[in-house]
């Protein structure tokens, strides 16, 4: 089963986020970009499928910043090919409509049965890359997937619904699946193997074609939420906090 995993880089939410002077976008100068967490799950699921069924695994990403280490790490984990798509203005941020159009072009010439990508990413404002790419390629899409297995020439995807209910969907290939969580947590590959990949593996570079970013709404204002609707904070040490909470609970009749 030949698989392609597109990876999107998103702002690391561990860091403080700031709005840039224009007021409509995030400040990217000091922003740390990391691979979207669900894309890492997609890669893990792809590796599991490769281990089970064989085939080629290709990882693709747009050159939006420091992406090389992630690509070499993918090789160290077991990917066969890694492709970096270069384009003007990528470092300033690319919306998902543009990214999916670039990926569509980049995937020409790469044979695949399945595309796995995270079902959503932290900074999605114009939909998600997975379903956009599927639509552009004219392929079926199923999202919120937490398990995949091969069956009768296609795959069966486990799709999550609220309340823990799961639907099994039979999907004809080729297809795009949006991964919510892989069957195992994303693996950790030791640094020495990543270093070795850096020495021996090659990142293929392709030039992006036209990026079609239409399809995203304009942002008139981007801002951080006001703290005014926040919780009433209880200051002090553990003892004091506990005392306050006990009083609170008693007042609300929860200590009956």
């Amino acid at each position: 089963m030949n698989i392609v995993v597109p990876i999107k880089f998103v702002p690391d939410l561990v860091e403080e986020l700031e709005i840039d002077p224009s007021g409509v976008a995030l400040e990217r100068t000091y922003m740390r970009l990391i691979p979207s967490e669900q894309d890492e799950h997609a890669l893990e699921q792809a590796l599991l499928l490769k281990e089970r069924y064989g085939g080629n695994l290709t990882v693709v990403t747009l050159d939006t910043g420091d992406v090389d280490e992630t690509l070499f790490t993918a090789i160290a984990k077991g990917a066969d090919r890694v492709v970096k798509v270069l384009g003007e203005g990528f470092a300033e941020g690319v919306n998902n409509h543009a990214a999916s159009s670039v990926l569509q072009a980049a995937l020409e010439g790469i044979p695949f049965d399945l595309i796995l990508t995270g079902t959503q990413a932290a900074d999605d404002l114009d939909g998600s890359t997975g379903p956009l790419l599927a639509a552009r390629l004219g392929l079926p899409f199923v999202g919120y997937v937490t398990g995949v297995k091969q069956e009768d020439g296609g795959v069966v995807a486990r799709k999550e619904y609220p309340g823990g209910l799961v639907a099994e969907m039979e999907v004809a290939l080729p297809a795009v699946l949006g991964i919510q969580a892989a069957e195992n947590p994303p693996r950790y590959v030791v640094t020495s193997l990543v270093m070795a990949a850096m020495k021996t593996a090659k990142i293929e570079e392709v030039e992006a074609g036209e990026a079609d970013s239409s399809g995203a709404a304009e942002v008139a204002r981007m801002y951080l939420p006001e703290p005014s609707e926040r919780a009433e904070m209880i200051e002090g040490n553990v003892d004091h906090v506990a005392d306050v909470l006990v009083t609170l609970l008693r007042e609300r009749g929860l200590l009956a």
Partner: protein
Amino acid sequence: MPIEPVLVLVAFLAALSLFGYRVYRRFEHMRLGQPAGPFGQWGQRIKALLVFVFGQRRLFRFRTPGVAHFFIFWGFLLLLPTIAQAIIEGVFPGFVLPFLGTFGPLALVQDLIAVAVAVAVLYGLYLRLIAKPERYRGSHQAEGILVLIFILTIMVSLLVMNGVRRDQGDSAIGPAYWQPVSAFIGSLLAGLSAGTQNTIGQVAYWVHLGVVLTFLVMLPGGKHFHVVTSMFNVFLRDLRAPGRLPPAPQFDGQAGVKNVEQFTWLQMLNWYSCSECGRCQEVCPAYASGLPLSPKLLIMGLRAHIFERGTALRAASSGGASGNPSAQAVLEKRLTGDVISDDVLWACTTCYACDQECPLFIEHISPIVDMRRYLLTQQRADPMLMSALANLRRYGNSFGQSDRKRAMWTADMTPPIKDIRKEPAHTLWFVGDYASYSPTLTTITQTTARVFQKAGIDFGLLYDAERNAGNDIRRVGEEGLFELLAMKNKAALANCEFQEIVTTDPHTYNTLKNEYASNGSADGSPTVPVFHYTEVLDRAIASGELPIRRQLGYTVTYHDPCYLGRYNGVYDAPRRVLDAIGCRLVEMPRNRDRSLCCGAGGGRIWMDEAGVKERPSENRIREAAALDNVQYFVVACPKDVTMYRDAVKTAGQESKIEVKDMIELVEEALG
């Protein structure tokens, strides 16, 4: 006495050949191992031989068994001439060993020591059969008891032989006062007829010879091989600082040890020297907590495995694998997984108690780390650990927090702390992850900063450029990540001007002191002295720079951190500090190099605690709480603060004892 010389000769040669063959086979297996060395420092090695082998120094850490073994060891050496005498006179009747066979004072010593050995052996049998200490669990009991009986028999038969000879006026030693015991035995037999005495003498002789030769043949096969190998093992041991792990070899790009022949021959010599005494097991915190690790059983398992695999490889190469299914089965055994299970390897806290306790200087931690390196390449580790490693790789700290938040604890410090990246300072304070990021520990870090300021220390921080120093990353087996972080740290250090480094964390202390300067990778780091904060306080108090205005008058106990105490020998500086601030120190039974690890080291703080029945930290708090009137449990490591404060609560000892970091008491004493 009429002896059949031929019989003796044949028996002796047969035993010697068998012995030689068995030694040769084991030596051959060791040749499968990787190179070891370089050696050198011969003077130090000879001294170690004298102190630890002839002096039996480490044996006395377990007092009575140590004394017993001392006599057995020396008995062995001193009685060797009598064994030689017995064998040679068997082939050449009437032969007497020149000098050694006639020297009165030697005979006296031999007589007395034979008794001492017999008593020691009886004590040994008492241990084995009645006392049955926990440390023997898993050791080869039958072999142990058998050999004790052998030794007893050898002693008794020797004295009986001597006794008979004295009676018959046949002793090569003249006066009876040189052989009081033998003479005494002889006197007991004096009433018997000459013929009976002869028979007794002959029987004693054949028993003596038979047991000696049987023991000789048995020697290489089990725990008594240490009789032969221990000298070499101690002499050839790695003399590096305990706090420096040996470099990590790679085999075909594969990190860590996957198959047993990827260990060094010196490590294999270690295993052959194991006497199964169990002292390592006795002091192991993982074993005490109910985890499946026993350092003793680990070594015994490795020893058995090198032998079976060596044998199987030989069988396969000579006879062809397909024709030998049992050899095939052995060859298919996986070192990690089948021989040694994964959870045994992950249970180790790398506290060094085992390596330090072992009288034969067997290294337990180094094979564990070697195998852990391999396990990590296969993702065979706790998901929590792997997630901590992912955080360390991405953020340089195990908390998964931004590197920009590392120095947030300094925010309200007045005066502000120097940024050593921007201006020089005398002392570079390498703070460490826990002291920087853990919300409960940052108050202690701030206290430390204030005390440094009051002591007039000119210090600065690396602020955001500091990364986890990597001590425990190396010990979980992620060598590559260690090198990456060390490279970043060294690059940051290289751009700063300072004369010394101080750390609050003993783990950081250990790796900066022992592993940074000597690491092969990224150079440019000056070799400056590295101190723990207790050493710096000790110095500042002694010089008067840190004036102590109050004598606290508390009764305290002090917990020696593994990486400060056992690994680096810093025991006295913290104690001097406590004394200087007027604290009365009551030592726990397990103090100094016998201190019980809190259980957080070796990456265990990043692992799930499943399988732990009693936390070592709780065990330790109970030990402290049992002391009279001790108010404070004093620690000098941030992880200890966390571990022991938790333990006080979970062990229900809040009303009895409180955990304080030394710096808190010092600040109190500043007035």
